[in-house]
């Protein structure tokens, strides 16, 4: 039984080392498989003996140095340098396998990275969960008088610590924080382990000796601290070792810096998102979609949309759609003033929420895609209509599709619907046309097709002032029209501003028809390259 279990672990080890290229240290092993750390060391030793070829081994040497005055020294040494390093120790020193890995990492921090992450995870577990770090169950020394605080140390304590400490010191201090040692609950578990893992297999006799040396050593080192700090002492040792190895200053400190940075960012991640949410709180925009008709082809039907949400959205919000061939940059800028407050809020929410990903969102995303297709159909029709009537209307309001309409939420009313709003560019784009969709103040999606070119700048200025008028006018816009042409009062406002563009619009129109005709002729890359 024990042998079988051991074999299983050895196999796991092999895949960890060769497939995942993880550094497996005895501490990691001990915690991961719930082995006493001495057993973990033996197991590693066994592994090295059996299948050590192709893997690099780091040994932990400990003993008194020959130097004067003699100092107690613990050192991590890679396999090839083992013999050499032994010479520096006075008399015998204990030799244990510290870790096994596919190759000796350049950055020493990698050595303890895996176990550091593991320790972090263990401490992050809810305080009610017993784990091997909390109850110190693998410690060789236990003190029956120490009672464990059932509530556990709040996690928040450990998180900041991770950031402020340096390197291993952190984990040590964390460890010491924990109230350790409750024997009762362990008892069972320990029995389990011992039966599972089985104690030293016969071929490890040699190591047992060094093992015992080692514990002696640890005791020495740990004398000053109390017994229950036994486990923490291991990181402490390691820290020492690191210092002794004297890594090049910048390298080491930089490594710490990096690790710290990443730890920190992890820790702060949740709060970041909540910040994002609070920024949005006013508008309750939990979900945002932004679509930009950025790069639609002359001929292609384009749907470019970005989608963002932070998950539990209660509302939906949309969308700045700018569609323009050559004035893309301008058009984007244009969008914000045009959409006024909504636009700004939207942008904000986009900024904070954008790449949020979650499976549920993903599902929605798929739905959205379907919806996009619906919209495409609608929009395909609309340009045609527009071509007919565009002589009269330079501005146009397109009602959203029925689905979108129901989805669009009104900022003031707390409507809960959110799905994304998707916008599509008409399929016969042409150079002078800007299609904008925005939300008016009542939350409806408004699509405007503006034919114009360079004058967008001028219009931009106008838009700010025109906006209010627009929005009130908007209220009258019939929601139910799927693609109705509505001459809005604001159109009148805009046309003067756009006055200059009228001629260019006219020249643009024939071009539009032409490109519209060509659409089907644009080849598709998928007809040349096959999906893998």
């Amino acid at each position: 039984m024990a042998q079988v279990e051991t074999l299983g672990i050895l196999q796991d080890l092999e895949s960890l080392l060769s497939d995942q290229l993880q550094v497996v240290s005895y501490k990691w092993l001990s915690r991961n498989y719930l082995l006493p750390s001495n057993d973990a060391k033996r197991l590693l030793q066994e592994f090295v003996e059996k299948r050590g070829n192709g893997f690099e081994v780091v040994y932990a040497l400990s003993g008194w140095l020959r130097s004067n005055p003699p100092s107690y020294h613990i050192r991590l040494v890679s396999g090839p340098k083992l013999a050499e390093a032994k010479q520096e120790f006075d008399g015998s020193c204990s030799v244990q396998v510290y870790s096994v890995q596919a190759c000796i990492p350049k950055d020493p921090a990698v050595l303890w990275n895996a176990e550091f992450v593991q320790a972090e995870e263990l401490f992050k577990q809810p305080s009610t969960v017993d784990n091997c770090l909390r109850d110190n169950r693998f410690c060789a020394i236990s003190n029956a008088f120490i009672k464990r605080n059932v509530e556990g140390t709040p996690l928040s304590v450990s998180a900041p610590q991770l950031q402020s400490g340096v390197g291993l010191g952190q984990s040590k201090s964390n460890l010491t924080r924990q109230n350790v040692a409750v024997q009762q609950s362990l008892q069972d578990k320990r029995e389990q382990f011992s039966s599972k893992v089985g104690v030293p297999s016969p071929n490890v006799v040699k190591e047992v000796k060094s093992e015992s040396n080692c514990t002696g050593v640890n005791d020495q080192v740990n004398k000053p601290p109390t017994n229950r700090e036994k486990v923490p002492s291991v990181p402490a040792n390691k820290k020492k070792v690191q210092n002794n190895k004297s890594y090049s200053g910048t390298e080491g400190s930089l490594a710490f810096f990096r690790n710290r940075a990443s730890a920190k960012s992890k820790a702060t991640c949740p709060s970041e998102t909540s910040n994002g949410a609070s920024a949005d709180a006013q508008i309750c925009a939990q979900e945002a979609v932004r679509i930009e008709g950025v790069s639609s082809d002359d001929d292609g039907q384009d749907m470019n949309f970005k989608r963002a949400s932070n998950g539990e959205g209660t509302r939906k919000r949309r969308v700045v759609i700018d569609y323009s061939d050559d004035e893309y940059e301008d058009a984007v800028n244009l969008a914000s003033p045009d959409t006024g407050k909504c636009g700004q809020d939207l942008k904000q929410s986009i900024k904070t929420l954008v790449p949020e990903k979650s499976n549920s969102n993903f599902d929605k995303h798929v739905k959205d895609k379907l919806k996009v297709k619906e919209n495409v159909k609608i929009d395909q029709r609309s340009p045609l209509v527009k071509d007919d009537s565009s002589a009269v209307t330079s501005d146009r309001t397109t009602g959203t599709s029925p689905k979108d309409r129901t989805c669009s939420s009104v900022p003031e009313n707390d409507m809960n619907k959110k799905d994304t709003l998707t916008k599509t560019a008409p399929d016969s784009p042409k150079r002078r046309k800007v299609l904008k969709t925005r939300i008016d103040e009542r939350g409806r999606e408004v699509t405007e097709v503006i034919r114009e070119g360079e004058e967008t700048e001028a219009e931009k200025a106008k838009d700010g002032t025109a906006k209010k008028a627009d929005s009130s006018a908007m209220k009258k816009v019939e929601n139910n029209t799927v693609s109705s042409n509505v001459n809005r009062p604001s159109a009148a406002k805009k046309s003067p501003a756009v006055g200059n563009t009228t001629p260019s619009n006219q020249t643009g129109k024939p071009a539009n028809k032409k490109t519209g005709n060509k659409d089907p002729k644009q080849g598709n890359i998928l007809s040349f390259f096959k999906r893998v």
Partner: protein
Amino acid sequence: MLELRLVQGSLLKKVLEALKDLVNDANFDCSATGFSLQAMDSSHVALVALLLRSEGFEHYRCDRNLSMGMNLNNMSKMLKCAGNDDIITIKADDGSDTVTFMFESPTQDKIADFEMKLMDIDSEHLGIPEAEYHAIVRMPSAEFARICKDLSSIGDTVVISVTKEGVKFSTRGDIGSANIVCRQNTTVDKPEEATVIEMNEPVSLTFALRYMNSFTKATSLSNTVTISLSSELPVVVEYRIAEMGYVRFYLAPKIEEDEDETKP
């Protein structure tokens, strides 16, 4: 665990500038060989393939193959925060849903960390077969950008015809038509200014200028551009990134009949 340290950080900035107009979201694939991306534009007309080989990085660590979905606009926003001389390090942990960009100033006195959320993107990876192209044109990238820009003010499409004499770019629009011919020219002082044409058989293909123009956003990456044409294949517009890899743009041609209209 992924850690890529790129001393010439401006390169990554330029790459993003080149890609972000064409593609919104894309998966960056990291493997032991390098940092790569393949993505189509949303209309599936153009495809971009980026490769930055691991040798080009000062430090390249990629423990296992990793695919990171990023919004290129957002990534570009972050990279814009890096100075042109900054050293950029890209870091990601296995299973993490964020990627970290670290910018170190050349003097090491400023270090900035930007963490960006990743996204799940359905990647449609296309197999791009190795092909013999009928004609391969190498020319100064700035020249090509200029031609595309000029022609797009006149027409929507460009016909690229390669003959023995040279390569002809022509367009026709409402206001008239334009033809630009570049002759083979290898007798220049600097090799990067040469126009070299290797042709097995004459080719003439029509493309949407809009895409060509967005390809030329990569002009800053390389002094020369290589345009490979075959009548049965999408054109390849390739910008080599010195000692690192390349950005290749593939664009499906417009279908033949179309040519009759646009051809002068």
